[in-house]
Structures are given as C-alpha cells and as structure tokens.
C-alpha cells in the first residue's frame, strides 16, 4: 500500500469510481488538488466561469449519461456558489458528488479567510455530506459518497476537504465494499403488496399510469411499456417523467399537472385506479390535493418510503426499485382490452387538443419549439430553462427516449439551461443538444458561453426572447390585473453578445426565418446561438390556476374571464 498525499488519494479514488469529467473552479483551498490533477490525465477538468455553472453542468452530465456528475469548488464563496446547483440536484434526485476545499484544520471555526460551514449549509439539501478530517479516511469517504449518490433514490453528496488534508500523507487503499449500517434501501417490493396491486389493476375498468422520473432512474422504460401495452393502460407523465414512455406511443396521453394537457388532467380526474410509478405527487402535478383523483384507488410504487403517503393517501404502497417491482408485477397482469376507457380518453384528446398552435402573423414561441422538433426529427436532447420556455418545450416537442428532456423540475432554477446543456453535451458528444432558454434565465448564467467556446462544446442555443420574465408576467396578467411589476426586462443584443464570446449567431423575427435558422445551426460544426424574438405577451395554456383542482383546467385565453383576477381572493396554495 502506497503512501500518497490526500490530493493524490482523492484523484486515485475518483479514477476508481470511473470519473471522466470534473466541472470546477480553482481557489486557494483547492490549489494542492489542482496541482495534482495533471498527474491524472484520465480526469478531464472543465473550467467554468461561475461555480453555479459547475454544479448545473455536473447535473446535466449526470442526467444525460446516468453517471455520477462531479463538480469542484474552493472554500468560502466557491462553495456557497454551488449551493443552488446542489439544491437543484437534491430536489430532482440527480446523482452528484460536489467536492469543496476548506480552510486548513487549525483554522476551522475561527472565521478564517474564505471559510464557510458548507457542511452545515448543505445539510438540508444533500443526501449526505462529509467533512474529512484526515487523509486516511478520504478513500472510504469517496467510495461511500459515490455509492450514496447513485443508489436508492439518487442525490447530491458533498465532500468538504481542508487544505492541509490535501497535503497530508496517508496510505492509499481503496475499499472494496461500503459499510453503512444506517443506509439499506429497500429494493425489492413486498410480494403480497405487488399481488394486491396486480389484482386491483386486473379488475379495473378505468386504470391510469402516472409515470415519473423514477422510471427513468431505475431504467424501467421497457417494463413500463410492457405493463401499459399488455393491460392496455393509458399513461400520463410528470414533467420529469417525460421520455420514460414514448410520446408517439398511442397510449401516451401526455403530461399532467399545472400546465399539462387538458385531457391528461381529465383522465386523472376520472380514473378508478391510479398506478403511480416513480413520482412523488408534487404540487405542480396534483394541483389541489383534496380534489386530486377523487374516484381513484392509488397504487404507489417508489424506492423512497418517505414519499409514500406524504402528499396523498395511498391504498397500495409498494416500496422498492421500480424496475424490479414492475418485473414482478408484469407477471401477474392479465392481457386485457380497455376499449371504452381508451375511447373516452381519445375523445377528450380530440375535443380538448392542448397542443394546437394558433394561427398568428407574428412569431409564436410554440412555433419555434415545434420547428426544432421537426428539424431534429425528435432525436435531440432538449435542455430547458424555467418558466414559459420550459412549459412550451415540454408541450410542443414529442420525446420518445428517456433523458431527452432535461429540465429543472423540483427547484425550478432559472439559469440551469446553459451549463446543464453544456454538461449534457460533454457527456453525450454524439447527440445533438439544444438549450432552450428564456431571455431572463439566459442572462443568469450567460457567462458559461465562454466555457463552451474554450472547451469546444457544440451546444445549440435557442433563446425565446419576449422581453419579459414570461411566466411571472403571465401570473401578473391573470391574477394581478396586469400589473407588470419588475417583469419587463431588456437584454443585450444577443447575437452581438454571442459574437463577443466567439459564438456564431442569428436573429429570427419572422415565421419563415425559423426553419432556415435552425437548419443553419444544425449544419454548423460548433456552438450556435439563435435569438428568437417572439410575441411578447403569449401565455402558456392549458393552465390549472393556483388553488384549483386538475379538473378545473383552463384551456385558452377566452376562458380567462372565469379566472380570479385579484390576488387577494386567491385561495391558500403553494404559489
């Protein structure tokens, strides 16, 4: 067993874990580590321009590849700049290891230069975290961190390493097993519960599957398809579940929730048995909980026992890894036709088409997304920002493969789009990656344009530019009597800005310019930016207003009259 420095032990451990890319930013506390990196050419380091970009890039990389994303920052402000990205990964269950430098051990707790209690700060937003106080335990900590990050319900793990631990020498030995007595996730579903679920499904005339990101994390897309097709059960998905079941499959009835398809929400409302798989009944998906699926018995399959029964009452809880549970369940399911129920949903889909783009002289954002879909033939990875651009990207592009839509769902972080798209492209260099951003979110992490140029990452960027913080403006229009406070925002000439960074770009103002611009972007062998100047006051529909239940979905502008127009009268709900 060799004696090495803490920095070397860390690098050796990362290599043992199969790490190929680290997104990071140097500083005093991590200098010894950076000095050691060149000894490990298998570890590619990508220098970002803000640590938040490093965290989001690690996140996008993890979602696109299924591997654990790694980001690295120095102590103090470097570490705190990672916080948003870590919280984002936590809420969306993304496997990530964040490594932060810390001041040397004798200085900890003394308000030293660039010292911050990052383990304390990230307690609520990490799956687990460590402050490593001796180089000898570093290898074990790394092994545990990666194991925790990727197993059970994945999540971010933070490792805080003092500067003098990087320098301290110890024997390097990489453990072959983890020893975590307090962490033993239940992966196998209880057979009696699965049997109960099977019986309920077989006897149901109006069953509905609600599939979430858990299906994707578990790699259970085939098992889900088998369940849906064998028993002829319609499927709706959450935002983060999009892609787990091909949207071009006739049994897929779209996304549910606040901006989901009207017919998806109607299906939930009328269902008699709901099979919730790898989803957590988030308030964006359920709308008013007391009005959620009033006629249904609920089967809930999830690897995290704390999610079961947290938001809604569950009739058949099944704790376990989705893939394994579905494998067992599928053996109990009898092939069936559910013609009447499916006919009902098809009728609703026809009568309440939620993805028709209205006729317009001006350039509509929905049209931009639709054209990106057509030119990329539905094969691209779309990484969205947050807000209206995100909702339109979810609605007007049909995703057939898992992790083809990458979006910040739980935390809803503006600025996620550009660095995450970069991370996704770095992880899947042979795929086409489009970053769909709003003009607001884009300006939050625009500095990463420099990173994609320096690292030659060929991300295609579509900025849906309406001169507003679109989603907030929509709420102000519908609920605050059009008082647009702090929502009109300017941005620099994006094409000139791109040029200044070294990126080719175009501005598109008219419908007929859209397809040629997208085609030009695709043909170009490097990053490309298109500034789509769209209709400024377009709203996202359908919409379930706050405090309403899924059945009370609003479909178009004309129906706005029904909406409460004064915020004071809004019932209590999560925004």
């Amino acid at each position, binding site marked *: 067993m060799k004696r090495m420095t803490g920095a070397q032990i860390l690098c050796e451990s990362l290599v043992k874990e199969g790490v190929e890319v680290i997104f990071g930013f140097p500083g005093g506390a991590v200098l010894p580590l950076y000095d050691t990196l060149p000894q490990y050419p298998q570890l590619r380091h990508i220098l970002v321009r803000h640590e938040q970009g490093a965290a989001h890039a690690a996140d996008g990389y993890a979602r696109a590849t299924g591997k654990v994303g790694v980001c690295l920052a120095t102590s103090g402000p470097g570490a705190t700049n990672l916080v948003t990205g870590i919280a984002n990964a936590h809420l969306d269950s993304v496997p990530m290891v964040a490594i932060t430098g810390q001041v040397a051990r004798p200085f900890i707790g003394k308000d030293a230069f660039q010292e911050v209690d990052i*383990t*304390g700060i990230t*307690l*609520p937003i990490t*799956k*687990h975290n460590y*402050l490593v106080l001796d180089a000898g335990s570093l290898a*074990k900590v790394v092994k545990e961190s990666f194991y*925790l990050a990727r197993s059970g319900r994945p999540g971010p793990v933070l490792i805080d390493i003092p500067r003098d631990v990087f320098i301290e020498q110890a024997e390097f*030995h990489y*453990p*072959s*097993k983890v*020893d*975590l*007595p*307090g*962490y*033993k996730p239940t992966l196998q579903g209880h057979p009696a519960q699965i049997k109960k679920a099977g019986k309920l499904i077989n006897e149901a005339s109006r069953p509905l599957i609600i599939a979430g990101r858990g299906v994707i994390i578990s790699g259970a897309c085939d098992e889900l398809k088998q369940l849906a097709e064998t028993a002829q059960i319609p499927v709706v998905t959450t935002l983060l579940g999009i892609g787990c079941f091909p949207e071009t499959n006739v049994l897929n009835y779209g996304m549910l929730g606040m901006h989901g398809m009207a017919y998806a929400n109607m299906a939930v409302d009328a269902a008699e048995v709901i099979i919730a798989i790898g989803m957590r009944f988030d308030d964006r998906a359920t709308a008013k909980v007391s009005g959620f699926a009033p006629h249904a018995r609920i089967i809930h399959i999830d690897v*995290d*026992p*704390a999610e079961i*029964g*947290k938001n809604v009452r569950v009739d058949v809880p099944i704790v376990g890894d989705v893939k394994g549970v579905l494998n067992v369940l599928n053996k109990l399911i009898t092939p069936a036709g559910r013609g009447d129920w499916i006919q009902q949903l098809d009728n609703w889909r026809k009568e309440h088409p939620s993805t028709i783009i209205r006729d317009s002289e001006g350039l509509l954002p929905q049209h931009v997304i639709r054209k990106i879909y057509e030119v990329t033939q539905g094969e691209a990875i779309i990484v969205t920002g947050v807000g209206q651009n995100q909702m339109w990207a979810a609605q007007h592009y049909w995703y057939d493969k898992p992790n083809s839509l990458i979006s910040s769902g739980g935390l809803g972080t503006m600025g996620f789009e550009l660095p995450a798209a970069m991370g996704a492209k770095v992880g899947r260099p042979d795929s086409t990656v489009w970053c769909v951003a709003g003009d607001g979110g884009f300006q939050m992490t625009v500095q990463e344009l420099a990173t994609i140029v320096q690292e030659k990452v060929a991300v295609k960027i579509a900025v849906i530019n309406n001169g507003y913080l679109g989603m907030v403006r929509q709420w102000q229009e519908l609920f605050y009597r059009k008082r647009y406070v702090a929502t009109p925002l300017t941005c620099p000439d994006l094409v000139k800005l791109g040029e200044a960074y070294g990126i080719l770009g175009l501005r598109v103002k008219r419908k007929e310019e859209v397809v040629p611009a997208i085609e030009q972007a695709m043909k170009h062998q490097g990053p490309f930016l298109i500034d789509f100047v769209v209709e400024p006051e377009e709203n996202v529909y359908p919409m379930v207003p706050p405090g309403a239940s899924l059945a009370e979905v609003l479909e178009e502008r004309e129906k706005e009259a029904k909406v409460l127009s004064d915020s004071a009268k809004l019932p209590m709900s999560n925004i």
Partner: protein
Amino acid sequence: MASTKHTLVALVEDKPGVLNRMASLFRRRGFNIESIAVGHSELPHLSRMTFVVDGSTTMVEQVRKQLDKVVDVVKVSDITEGDIIIRELALIKVRATSSTRSEIIQIVDIFRADIVDVASDSVSIEVTGEEEKINSLIDLLRVFGIKEIARTGRIAMTRGGSGLLPMEEKSSKTRAKKPTP
C-alpha cells in the same frame, strides 16, 4: 385526527454532527418536537435518541420515515403503542425557609424523590418518574417559589425481552472493527 404524544426511539451513529442533522430535519419539516434525550446505547459507536413528537399518527409516520432517510440513523421506531417504560429525571431547586422546609420534605417523601442539596434558603430535589409525576411535584412545589428546573426529557424502553435491534441484526447494523481489506 386526535393529536397525541408519540415516543420515537432511534439508534444513530456516534459521529459529530448527527444531532445537528436530526434537529435540522425537524425544523425544516415543521415537526413539533417536545423533547429529545440522547446518550450511549448498548452498542459501541451507536447513540440512542428518544424523541417525543406531538402530532397525528400520519404526521408522526412521516417524521419516522424522514428520520430513517438520514444516513447516520440506523433504526427508528415509534414505540408509543407498545407496552413501554417511560422515565424522566428532573432537578428542582426550591426556595425553603426554616418554616417551610419540613413541609417540602414531606412532599418529597410522598413522591419518593430525594433531596440532593441544602442551602440556607433553598433545597434541591432529584425526582425520576413519568412526566405526569414530575409535573405534579412541580405544581405542588410552585407555591414555595421555584428557583430552577432542569429536566432530561423522556427516555423509554419496551417491556419484555426484545431490544430495539434484534440480536440477529446487531452485526449488520454496527460497523466492523477494522475496515475489511
């Protein structure tokens, strides 16, 4: 749903910051914790925590599940429904003059408590028992003037032969003495 006091017992790894993790969890999830008592357990490197949570059964089940998610927590059980022994210890400093001292001593005897300190104008009392017993003693002593109270919070244990961790689970729930090569 009726609100009742639930007793949760947890075995947690004896590492720095674990108590912080649990407390932080309670605060951000809005759980109403009445008392926490922590100390060594029968297993090396594992501490035992006893919580009293005030809430409905559904809410307490959520508390238990969220605690279980914490990596350092080895086991959490809600032992409220079982046959359990509940105890708490309190130290009470009461004002006592020569005229009131004998009455205080009588009350102390009735509660089978002990006087552990005497000063010219006060008396310190040690009492163990269930919370209601300690509350009653404090109520009776209030008229004399209470100077200080220190209470440990509830500790609890199930009656009968089984421990929190069944014997067959003990080896898997504690760390090996040396890391296996």
